[in-house]
């Protein structure tokens, strides 16, 4: 399910761009910062690009969690109590109740085009970059957790305790909410997210990252030639993460 009716779509597009505008308006500091430090000055973040990910569940190996460990390592996540630890990416096991067919796959922030977390955030801390990456501005987040209530994918985590040894490129803060950034610090250097790199290093190649707006990119070619789906496609969020084989 990838298409909405036309009216619905245009309405959502309007609302979406309004939300982006709001995000831009309230989070200029962060955007400027990221632009300045991580991107060549002549290349602005623009909506010509839509970063996305394609996950092939057939290639995702049972029992492997290289992507999860890589993410924890990259952003120094983890702690000691799973109920309150941040998890930006997790492995989910599925079993069809009727047929018994089972599969496994990573689940992360789906970087929706119309993200509910951005809609509900009272301060605009939760925002969507023009290139499709959904982020939280840690300076504006008041820690109300409304975005966590709104996220259909349970992709967000609240920081429940003091943090130590933070990575300079991945700022986090006690009392605020965070989620997968698509490794925006890497993306802005034209690198792939840590999870994708780890999956490739294991030889599974289950994740493809790239620009969904560029017809020549690997991800676009794959999406065009094989069927894929969105999780909870019924919500019409136009996710940036797509799956094959579910």
């Amino acid at each position, binding site marked *: 399910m990838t298409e909405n009716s036309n009216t619905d779509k245009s309405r959502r597009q309007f609302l979406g761009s309004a939300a982006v505008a709001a995000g831009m308006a309230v989070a200029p500091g962060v955007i400027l910062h990221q632009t300045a430090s991580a991107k060549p000055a002549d290349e602005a973040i623009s909506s010509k690009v839509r970063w996305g990910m394609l996950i092939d569940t057939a290639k995702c190996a049972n029992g492997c969690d290289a992507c*999860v460990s890589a993410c924890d390592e990259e952003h120094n996540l983890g702690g000691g109590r799973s109920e309150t630890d941040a998890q930006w990416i997790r492995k989910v096991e599925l079993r069809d*109740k009727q047929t018994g067919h089972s599969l496994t796959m990573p*689940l992360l922030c789906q970087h929706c085009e119309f993200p509910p977390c951005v809609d509900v955030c*009272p*301060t605009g801390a939760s925002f969507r970059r023009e290139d499709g990456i959904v982020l939280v501005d840690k300076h504006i987040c008041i820690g109300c957790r409304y975005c966590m209530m709104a996220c259909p994918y349970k992709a967000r985590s609240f920081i429940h305790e003091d943090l130590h040894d933070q990575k300079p490129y991945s700022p986090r803060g006690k*009392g605020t909410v965070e989620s997968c950034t698509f490794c925006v610090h890497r993306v802005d250097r034209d690198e792939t997210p840590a999870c994708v790199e780890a999956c490739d290093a294991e030889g599974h190649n289950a994740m493809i990252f790239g620009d969904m707006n560029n017809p020549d990119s690997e991800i676009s070619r794959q999406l065009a030639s094989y069927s894929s789906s969105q999780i909870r496609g019924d919500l019409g969020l136009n996710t940036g993460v797509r799956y094959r084989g579910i």
Partner: protein
Amino acid sequence: MKQQIHYREIDGRSPGFFALLGLIGALILVGLGAAYYMEHNGHYVTGMTNQIVWGTPHVFAVFLIVAASGALNVASISSVFGKTAYKPLARLSGLLAIALLVGGLAVLVLDLGRPDRLIVAMTKYNFKSIFAWNIFLYTGFMVIVAVYMWFLMERKMNRFSKVGGLTAFIWRIMLTTGTGSIFGFLVARQAYDAALMAPMFVIMSFSYGLAIYLLVLMAAYKWTNRPLGDAIIFRLKNLLGVFIASVLYFVVVYHLTNLYMTEHHSYERFVLMDGGVYTQLFWVVQILLGSLLPLLLLYLPATGKSRTWIGISAALVIIGGMAQIYIIIIGGQAFPLVLFPGMEVSSSFYDGVVSHYAPSLPEILLGIGGTAIAAIIVLLGVRVLRFLPVSLEDKYTDPHHETTGTAAQASEATA
């Protein structure tokens, strides 16, 4: 025969007054201490997790906020619907509304991950967020009710009280709708995906607000030894009965519509049958203790005329209401999100399982602290301003009350 109503501040010199003040003050301090403890250590020390992100503080906060708009009802009935019997009760109604709202908001704010950023919340708005709208609805409510109170209390402004009352009434409906919509807009969650959520919150507010009003009224008159006639008590308790029944009706409709939609069956099963603590809270506390029992007590001749039983009924309504909000907020989160219909799901992040939550002491103390903030506002309010009529004997509140014996009997017979 029209009686002039006199209002006066309470005395506030008795040991009882200071004892009450001290008790409430202590509860507030404990609540603030709990908030600091949570803030300092992070929410790690609470029962809240990444699965149950809103916990007991939110149950208290939502209950108080919902009750706040309901407490204003009594004033609305007098000003908007022109029922003179309620007129002497209007001032207290406004005070209670503001107090409950402040108490609820205090809990909400003190539970934020970064309460120090309140100023951010006040200056940066995302107008698509119902939360941001609510910030305006809440502050607006306080201002409007305060002005309305002034219209009521200042003789020169009395003539505007009807307009003030109407504005406050419309605003309060919007406010509760806004509060209900916080949940109604969460389309992804099985428990909340219902437009019925907003009107149900409005009805709930009627019931909770009136229950609190009744208790405060009876306590205030008892402790100050001011006369309080049966006429007004019976009126209010009959009204409470109607509200309890209306909430019950909405609850039934809500669950019936959910049962009609196959995709919501598992959530219904969870609440109504095998949700453990949530199922028990629903049947035992919300339905039995919080709805059916008070209905019975209020209408049975043996108990319906006793103030003690009326007070107990009101308290039961409050307890049942807390349970109802607990089920909505916490039960709604404990129930797993349905990401893959028809699939069994498991993960390291508690997908596909009912999440565990137990209220922690700091959360409860924070909630009680917020309630105490509401209480101190009422207590100091009636101490310094003229909120309470000196007497609420029947002749002031019963429009049919006549001084001559025969007429009184006649009105008794027709009543």
